[in-house]
């Protein structure tokens, strides 16, 4: 009797998805529906899949993700606001065999930390930056960020951001891409399952850039902030799709040749 002819009574299942091991078994403080959680999950999945957990050092930053070091199961430190790329530089330069990544929000990276991120990128530091762009300052209660859209109301732009007061929002993935030291600079979004899966591929490529010593890698992730936007989690994701993607186009702004060859295609 061939195996194919046997009728099985019991159901054999496989696990299609389970929580990654690189995430610690704690409940996060993030708001319901906050895409920080999704981004954490994706990074943790990539660390699991590339088997990097035990070599990895995280530099957490200041913002809602200030306690990221409680959530990732890796060695981690806490940087002053904006300084994570500099701390990461110090760590990686002395410990080139460790995988070093920073996890930063838009205030941390694009406001106070602008000097540090540009220079780390320009020097081609072999670090990976996960950049959460939710167009607002979450932790401090919803103030304007350099990435807040024109007309967007926040607690420090109560009548809506104007060009005269604050200029145009800053597009980080595009800003850093031209620097020769940057091996990988892309923007993805977390607003639905399809985009979440694409984001994961980008995060994988970013860590591969570091593994291969190609230079600085950054993945900008369009994210939501339901609480400070005053929306439900689902409404907030739709707002990302309908408003943020238009101003912050998704795409690859810099992809090192070595990464392109590995993937066989661009994008």
């Amino acid at each position, binding site marked *: 009797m061939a195996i194919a002819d046997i009728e099985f009574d019991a159901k054999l299942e496989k696990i299609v998805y389970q929580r990654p091991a690189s995430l610690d078994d704690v409940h996060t403080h993030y708001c319901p529906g906050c895409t920080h959680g999704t981004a954490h999950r994706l990074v943790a999945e990539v660390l699991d899949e590339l088997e990097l957990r035990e070599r990895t*050092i995280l530099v957490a930053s200041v913002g809602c993700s200030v306690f990221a070091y409680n959530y990732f199961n890796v060695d981690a430190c806490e940087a002053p606001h904006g300084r994570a790329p500099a701390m990461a530089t110090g760590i990686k330069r*002395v410990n080139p065999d460790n995988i070093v990544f920073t996890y930063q929000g838009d205030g941390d990276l694009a406001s106070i930390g602008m000097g540090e991120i540009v220079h780390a990128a320009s020097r081609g530091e072999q670090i990976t930056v996960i950049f959460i762009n939710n167009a607002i300052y979450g932790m401090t209660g919803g103030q304007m960020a350099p990435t807040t859209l024109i007309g967007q109301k926040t607690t420090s732009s109560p009548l809506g951001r104007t060009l005269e007061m604050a200029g145009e929002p800053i597009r980080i993935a595009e800003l850093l891409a031209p620097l020769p030291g940057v091996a990988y600079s892309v923007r993805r979004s977390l607003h639905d399952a399809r985009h979440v899966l694409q984001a994961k591929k980008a995060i994988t490529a970013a860590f591969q850039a570091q593994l291969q010593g190609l230079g600085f890698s950054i993945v900008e992730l369009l994210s939501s902030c339901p609480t400070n936007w005053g929306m439900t989690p689902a409404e907030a994701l739709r707002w990302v799709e309908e408003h943020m993607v238009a101003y912050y186009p998704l795409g690859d702004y810099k992809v090192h040749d070595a990464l392109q060859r590995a993937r066989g295609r661009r994008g």
Partner: protein
Amino acid sequence: MPKQLLKGNVAIAEAAVRAGCQAYFGYPITPQTELLEHMALRMPELGRAFLQAESEVAAVNMVYGAATTGVRVMTSSSSPGISLMQEGFSYMAGSEVPAVVVDVMRGGPGLGNILPSQGDYFQVTKSAGHGDFHPIVLAPSTVQEAIDLTVLAFDLAEKYRTLVFVVADGTIGQMMEPAELPPMQPVPESRPDWALTGARGRPRNINTSIYLGAREMEEANIRLQEKLRRITANEIRYAEQEVDDAEVIVVAFGTAARVAQTAVQRLRKEGLPVGLFRPITLWPFPEERLAQLSEQEATKRFIVVEMNAGQMLLDVRASVGRKFPVHFHGRMGGVVPLPNEVEEEIRALFALDDNHKMQMTMEGSNGNRRH
């Protein structure tokens, strides 16, 4: 090792290299830039980490990052750059990572000038930055001492998981003197168990200065204060010259102490009972020894000589009590006092009768310039 003619900044840098410094991150600023430049040559030669950062803000954070991984790391700067680094110092103090910082002090406040001063005393001794903490502060007064204290700095930093400052002034940084360098120490092989090295086969290490709850934060501070008490109990250093029978004791550190030393030597030749007390650790400050000296039968007065408006002066007065006469002679703006003027000030003290004791003490405080 034979003596060589060495520039202060270079000597400090080379001493650090020989003490096993594994990483240096800094930024050019006069009058300490030669330190950075020497590191730029030596560290890559030895396969160690060197980077001229984009700013002092970035530099101190690179130091912070490297320090979390348990390596010997240092930076150097001068007054305005030290101000920029203070954020980093506070974080390092709170998260208890070791590091060595060299401050070659210059005229201030503000951009000031590039001449020597001792105007950062408050800044470096009273706190590392915001919050309750004190780095260990070592003050050399010769190039040789700068070398020796730099080596000591790394050991103390590691021993206590704390910041150690070596504060010189522009004179010491720039001057050239014969001095002996120590032999090359190997870079430590292993890392401390608190260091971030990758959570391989062990629970992860977290390095942070955040304690959200009041009780947690207080406990963390109690631990830090306990550490500071241990440092105070064990690490005070000072030098004394002819203080036992001195009627007037000069208290000075760094270059001011060298100038005062000359004045004291000259006055002693004339038979005047004068001595010199030179704190080497500005923090922990040698309060008890000063108090003891004030209780000596012979001793009638102190005179503090500084290149600032009277900063260590306050620590001296606190050590001996407000009733004991503590006079002051200070120059600011990068002016280095000369032995002659210090001599005159001391002579004037010998001419005082007791009625004028309190008056002189009052005039000496609050930053009034004296010629």
